[in-house]
């Protein structure tokens, strides 16, 4: 007879626990909106037997600029398309500002500015009619619409080309029109798929500057395979390969993973000096290995694990009166980290 009573009590307790839990969930929901601008969890996308994205999870908090790195075909574009709501994941979820992209697609898309790969648009339109169209679809009206359009045109310097058809614009301007389209509605979150791909170095620099200028008050995800970009604009970097997350770190920490981190590079004035300077460096304390670049007359003294060879090397150089053009400390090379991380993944997929 006592057992049903006990069960009933437990039922009552469960109800209370449930309520407490729900309150907790509500608090969590507020936190989601506060600092989880983008949340991706367990994301998987398969095309038949091909796995494009595999159990990918990450979170982007307010104010971050996340560099999304990976070799071509790593699943970057697929992930961004899922966040933008263009394709549905096979498993897992993605949410923008707490709105699940599958269950609340319109709310998620309204909070998001998205630049698809290659910045597609309609070539027969002019930037003016194109941006007006985007503003209309996004429901901007009246004074706000006029202000947002003027601000966007101004910010991206589209004034001189407003009434030219888009197919007559240079690649750099086409890309700016694509960026303009993404920020017309002043979204809190921007997702930019390869914003500088295919541009010349000047245009790349321009677009990068524009992105840095947009950054205050926004959360941005940029996919790229250009590493200087990460250094230039990002506060955090993620490296993916074969759809898997390999690294999630601040760019400085990422650089520190390089074997060139804390290495010392010397450029020798007289190529004839190279052999004996290299030999002396190898014997110096704190130096693990020495790389010789005969073409440039450059020597790089790599640190032994946990060592800082700079002091020893510079002292040696002044004591021996080496004739040097340059002696500098390396912060680490991102491209080398990128290659070592992604090629390790290549060997063990």
């Amino acid at each position: 007879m006592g057992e049903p009573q006990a069960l009933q009590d437990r039922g009552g307790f469960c109800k209370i626990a449930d309520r407490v839990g729900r309150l907790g969930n509500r608090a969590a929901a507020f936190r989601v909106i506060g600092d989880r601008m983008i949340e991706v969890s367990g994301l998987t996308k398969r095309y038949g037997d091909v796995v494009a994205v595999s159990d990918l999870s990450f979170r982007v908090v307010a104010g971050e600029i996340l560099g999304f790195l990976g070799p071509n075909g790593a699943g970057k574009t697929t992930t961004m398309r899922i966040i933008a709501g263009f394709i549905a994941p096979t498993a897992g979820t993605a949410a923008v500002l707490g709105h699940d992209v599958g269950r609340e697609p319109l709310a998620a898309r309204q909070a998001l500015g998205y630049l698809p790969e290659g910045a597609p648009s309609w070539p027969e339109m002019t930037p003016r009619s194109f941006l007006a169209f985007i503003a209309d679809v996004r429901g901007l009206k009246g004074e706000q619409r006029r202000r947002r359009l003027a601000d966007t045109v101004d910010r991206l310097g589209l004034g001189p080309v407003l009434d030219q058809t888009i197919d007559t614009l240079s690649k750099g301007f086409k890309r700016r029109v694509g960026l303009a389209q993404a920020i017309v509605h002043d979204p809190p979150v921007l997702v930019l798929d390869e914003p500088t791909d295919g541009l010349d170095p000047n245009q790349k620099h321009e677009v990068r500057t524009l992105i840095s200028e947009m950054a205050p008050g926004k959360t941005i995800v940029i996919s790229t395979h250009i590493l200087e970009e990460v250094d230039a604009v990002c506060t955090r970097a993620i490296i993916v390969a074969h759809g898997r997350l390999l690294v999630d770190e601040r760019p400085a920490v990422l650089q520190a993973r390089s074997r060139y981190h804390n290495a010392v590079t010397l450029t020798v004035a007289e190529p004839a000096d190279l052999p004996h300077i290299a030999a002396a460096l190898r014997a110096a304390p704190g130096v693990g290995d020495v790389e010789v670049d005969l073409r440039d007359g450059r020597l790089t003294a790599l640190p032994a694990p946990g060592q800082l060879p700079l002091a020893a090397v510079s002292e040696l150089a002044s004591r021996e009166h080496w004739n040097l053009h340059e002696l500098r400390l390396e912060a680490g090379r991102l491209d080398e980290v990128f290659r070592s991380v992604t090629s390790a993944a290549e060997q063990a997929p």
Partner: protein
Amino acid sequence: MNGLRAIYQRELASYFATPLAYVFIVIFLLLAGALTFSLGGFYERGQADLAPFFSFHPWLYLFLVPAVAMRLWAEERRSGSIELLLTLPVRPGVAVAAKFLAGLTFIGVALALTFPVWITVNYLGSPDNGAIVAGYVGSLLMAGGFLAVGSCLSAATRSQVIAFILTVVVCFLLLLAGFPLVLDVFRGWAPAPLLDAVASLSFLTHFQAISKGVLDLRDLLYFIMTIGVWLYATTLVLELRKAD
């Protein structure tokens, strides 16, 4: 509603931003006129009606509407702008409807420009203008049916040429579903109800009823439902294949 109106306006403007619109309208008007007066024997019949005019519409539409429909989605897929369009805060069904309505408006403009034929027949005699209005309504609905078929097949491919050819073939079969060419395939093995069902799908049968001035609710519903079904199919095809 924002999305529907904005996309509709953008699409409609894009027709007139390329030579396609003018080529289409000129060819449509030339062919409609030529067929009515030469092959249709408009004068020789000595009757004040537009039967010869409307009777050629199914055949005109068979080639001209797929030409309008082929670019609806195939072009967006080829150029990648589909990714932009479908990541805007708009439901895919709304985008499909907006594009369809823009295409239909465009064809409607071409159709409206045939008004001199109407004036001519009123000048020559005293036709039943109610029947002529019915004919125009039926003609536009039939064009809508073709356009909806074309929209769906255009969504299934990124090649406009393939979209065009498939649409012509499917529209041809739908047009003649009530005629021996199609029915003979089913005759002999299919049960009578299926045979009747196939026959009742014929665009031509339904259109001929309307163009004679008989605005039967069933014929109107037939075209409206055909349009609805094919547009719904367009949405499904897009959901499945938009990223390919």
